[in-house]
């Protein structure tokens, strides 16, 4: 079974390319969502094994999406990793306990993060 990855980020060019690159590995099914307001309903339909969440997005930011995820009985146990274009990443970086990765990121790095966060 391929692992299902949901990427919530308002940068469409970025999410499309990540999707192409991850799917090329034949290890993952990737769904992208560029509108954070729709993140919850998309997640409910897609049932991801891991969610990447951009921190800085218009209207609802990553923290807001996370709050809604954690309040949803169906989604609250799905692991979340933050994506950010601001914070300087270092391996152990976390924001309120969630791993944070800094853009730009290579596919190899991304796959490491995925493996570490999916049980």
């Amino acid at each position: 079974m391929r692992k299902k990855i949901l990427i919530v980020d308002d940068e469409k060019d970025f999410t499309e390319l990540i999707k192409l690159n991850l799917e090329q590995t034949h290890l993952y099914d990737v769904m992208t969502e560029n509108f954070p307001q729709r993140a919850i309903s998309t997640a409910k339909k897609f049932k991801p094994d891991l969610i990447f969440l951009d921190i800085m997005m218009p209207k609802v930011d990553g923290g807001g999406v996370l709050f809604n995820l954690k309040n949803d009985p169906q989604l609250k146990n799905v692991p979340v990793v933050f994506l950010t274009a601001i914070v300087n990443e270092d391996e152990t970086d976390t924001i309120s306990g969630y791993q944070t990765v800094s853009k730009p990121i290579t596919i190899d790095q991304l796959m490491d993060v995925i493996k570490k966060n999916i049980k």
Partner: protein
Amino acid sequence: MKDSFEKRLRTLHEVGNRLSRAESVEELCRSIVELGTSELGFDRLSIWFVDKNPKYLIGSFGVDEKGRLRKEIGERVLRDDDPAVRHIHTDRSHSVLEAGVPLRNGSGKVVGRGAHIIATIWDGQKVVGYLSADNLLSKDPIGEHDREILELFASTFGHLYSLKKAEEEVRSAYSRLKDVQHQLIQSAKMEVVGSLASGAAHEVKNPLAVMLQGIEYIAGKTEASDRGAHTTLERMRRAVEKADSIIRGLLDFSAVSKLSYTPQNLNSIIEKALRLVSYDIDRSKINTVREFQKDLPDVRIDDNKIEQVLVNLFLNSIYQMPDGGKLIIRTYSKKAPRGGFKVFIEIEDTGPGIPEEIMDKIFNPFFTTRRAAGGTGLGLAIVRNIMDMHDGKVEIANKKVGHGVKAVLAFPTNKRR
């Protein structure tokens, strides 16, 4: 042989012009003694200012018993030790001439007998000091003309003194203003750099992320045999990494990247902070006393920021104990009422304490009682700011027993040890 009275008046006028070019009060005083002896023919001259406590006179410049110019700044004598000064003071006259009286040196010790004139130095509002002349070395008689010349000389001096003093005050107020302004500009700059950097980071890192993904995608689609294409893609990837590292550098420099919290032992952070102020501690001969709990639980802090908190508090205490004292630093942990643990740092000094009237202002940015000594009043404002960022607390109060201040820092932690 002294010049005629008229000639000396003309000389006095020229000397006055030269004196007005003095750059500071100190230079003015030195020139008074130098020119008064070399140009106006006085044998020994000395300047005494009235102290804040009017019972005392404070030295400035004078001529010693061997005829050498002597800096007597800071030397104190009792005003009433000198009968002539006492006389002038009660008579409200501008000068007195006495013959056959004991003559003194800069420390007030009697070094011979002779004639002696004292003239008041008047700054336009009050007597600020006395100019004294005697004939210890030359034994030339001193007469009425000398008294009049000295009185005029003292009055020129008083006038220039108030001018130079005002100039100096303006200059030092200006330079303090400059300093504060400089600091403000610095922090405003940092803010601008900070918001620029984080704005730029977002705007640049996102396109970089797209480019990197694009490069990887094309790389995956390109035949392995196409060496040219792969080298080109590799070059592009390196260019993206280079641009990214520049952005990282900018973020580090402006320190807008969030505080970095790591588990730390506060006892060792305290030692680091103490090393930073060890020079000031030694200079003021302050005893540091450490009462550390040995198995202190770690707390999650940004160690650089907390070091700054400690240094600010240490310096506040050190400034209040210029002639020595005790700096007690205590650490301990306690169970918090609402679960978890709290770690405490207490810093006590044996300075004068904080006047109750200003207690509610000390955390305000720019509130300081040490403006003249270079305080900006930002120290405690920064302390509070940083403690807030750590969900911590800072409290400052006068000690209940003895005198001095006690500052308490509280840090939350979920660890027991």
